[in-house]
């Protein structure tokens, strides 16, 4: 296979600045040299590539689009390009970076006290501390407003009780951003590893996202000081605001997975010969599949880029991000399935990245707002009628 050079049918690089291209190049090089050689083994062994955390911190990948506290201060387009390159390597690594930046650093940056920011952001930025985000519960996924986790005041402290699940990085995290219902509404808390009453356990048996840690969190009479609450986070909207950040990154990330599948299938079909010693890429049915994929990837790239430009202008809406996340994830998953098909039996083995991307994307389709829920967000945006119930 020739070196991976991305997918750019419509010369979309002409829409990017020199800095944006350099950011993508440096992330691509990092993934190519440090992740690609190890990801197959990590995935097969169900192991997160934890040795890359410090290096990713040094690169500036964590909270890359945040300003101050050691963060790189990248634009949202630059941030998106980083996510794309990371997920071209593996969705698990991109998920780690998404959670650390968009679901942990972002809420601390947006709603934390100055003390919380000074304590946590530099550590999370350089990877000396790892974070996780606890919103989803065993009984409440698409409907987080109905969460069962409770926090009640006890003198100057808070007592938290409840359970969170499907938490990326849960058991490796030094700090968990936990959302709980209080008498005043939903609030966010920073729960440090080792806090009495706070325990984690990993979810085993995953056939997807195997190179990523997924855990459950249990809070049992977990006592926290008032200083552990995010003072600026008022209501479920704050939690959903974090998800908008992460979903934005996912919308870019999956373009990387789609591109990796497409480029693998393109190369394979040009080399694989069948019927009269002709490459299967010369067959019309194969070309139709390649044409479908490159067209959909290109449309997805334009969607992501426009969302990025809108985000940089401060004009993006959650319903825009829903379209980005829903469309691009479904598209990437379809590209993975079609590419698997084009590789025939070879498509199912781990010499090629396709089946791994496909399995990962099944998770990505569900997490951070399912495909269905995002359809309803878009539906509400165009009709003014909420149809969730």
């Amino acid at each position, binding site marked *: 296979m*020739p070196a991976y050079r991305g997918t750019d049918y419509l010369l979309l690089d002409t829409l990017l600045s*020199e*800095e944006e291209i*350099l*950011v993508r*190049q440096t992330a691509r090089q990092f993934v190519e040299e440090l992740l690609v050689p190890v990801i197959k083994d990590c995935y097969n062994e169900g192991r997160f590539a934890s040795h890359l955390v410090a290096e990713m911190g040094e690169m*500036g990948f964590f909270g890359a689009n945040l300003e101050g506290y050691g963060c790189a*201060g990248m634009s949202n387009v630059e941030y998106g390009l*980083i996510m794309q390159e990371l997920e071209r390597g593996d969705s698990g690594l991109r998920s780690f970076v998404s959670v650390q930046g968009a679901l942990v650093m972002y809420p601390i940056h947006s709603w934390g006290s100055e003390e919380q920011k000074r304590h946590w952001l530099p550590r999370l930025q350089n990877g000396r501390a790892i974070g996780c985000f606890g919103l989803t519960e065993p009984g409440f996924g698409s409907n987080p407003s109905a969460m069962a986790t409770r926090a009640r005041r006890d003198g100057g402290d808070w007592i938290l009780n409840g359970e969170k699940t499907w938490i990326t990085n849960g058991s490796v995290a030094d700090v968990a951003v936990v959302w709980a219902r209080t008498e005043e509404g939903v609030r966010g808390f920073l729960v440090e590893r080792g806090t009495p009453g706070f325990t984690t356990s990993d979810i085993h048996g995953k056939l997807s996202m195997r190179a990523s840690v997924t855990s459950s969190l249990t809070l049992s009479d977990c006592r926290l000081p008032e200083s552990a609450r995010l003072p600026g986070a008022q209501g479920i909207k704050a939690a959903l605001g974090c998800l908008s950040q992460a979903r934005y990154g996912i919308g870019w990330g999956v373009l990387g997975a789609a591109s990796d599948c497409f480029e693998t299938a393109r190369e394979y079909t040009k080399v694989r010969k069948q019927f009269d010693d002709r490459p299967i890429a010369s067959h019309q049915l194969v070309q139709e599949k390649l044409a479908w994929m490159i067209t959909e990837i290109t449309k997805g790239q334009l969607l992501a880029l426009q969302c990025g430009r809108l985000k940089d202008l401060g004009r993006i809406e959650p319903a825009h991000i829903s379209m980005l996340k829903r469309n691009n994830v479904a598209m990437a998953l379809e590209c993975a399935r079609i590419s698997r098909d084009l590789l025939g039996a070879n498509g199912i083995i781990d010499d090629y990245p396709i089946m791994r991307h496909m399995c990962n994307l099944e998770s990505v389709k569900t997490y951070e707002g399912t495909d269905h829920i995002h359809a309803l967000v878009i539906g509400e945006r165009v009709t003014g009628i909420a149809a969730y119930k």
Partner: protein
Amino acid sequence: MKILVAIKQVPAHDSRLFIEPTGEWIEENDLGYEVNEPDAYALEAALQLREQHGGEVIVMCAGPARVSSTIREALAKGADRALHIEEDDLRHWDNLSVAQLLAKAAQTEQPDLVLTGLQSDDLGFGQTGVIMAELMGLPHATLAMSVEVVDGRLRVKCELEGGWFQYVSMPLPALVTIQSGILRLRYATLMGIKRAKTKEVRKITPAELGAAGEPGITLRRIYAPHSLKQTQMLAGSVQEQAAQLVEKLKHEVRVI
């Protein structure tokens, strides 16, 4: 210590190359470019010397507007500032005139040390650094595997043939050409990319440097190597065929 690193932008190493209809150069449209690999190691060596001894690293690159991406990458990796010698059409410059151009530009900086790659990945003359050193009146070493500053002098480990090395000591200022693969290259970090936006890039033209670029050598034509494959069928009995084959291998192909 003031270290000047001469870098070149070349077509990306696995590019598919097409030759222009004139036959004088390759098609440059839609071609991806990157830093010449040995020059990336020269920059890394310079950055490590600066980390050990302090001072300044200046990168110098000649070429059209597109080389700004290579300059920006070098600044993002940590070079302090850059010199862009603006010349749209370097293809008609031979290696003596390019070395004259670079030497004149380098002299405007009076560096203590000049580092560059041992050769370029595109034209591969391997001459530019050496000629520059002669023109600047500097001692030089080539094919360097490591460069150290010891008691104000350079100690350079050079690669010889057959797994042999040579250690050379020389006074500063000096010029050293660097071998690929001698160090682990750093990445341009996101913070580095951001910092690079505010770093100085001084632009200068060959005319301002008084460099004419009149070639002593003209590049007439470039072409892909011809691969000639001929098949001959040998007739006769197996013994006769074997005899013919030996004859051909001995006298036509001359391999036995």
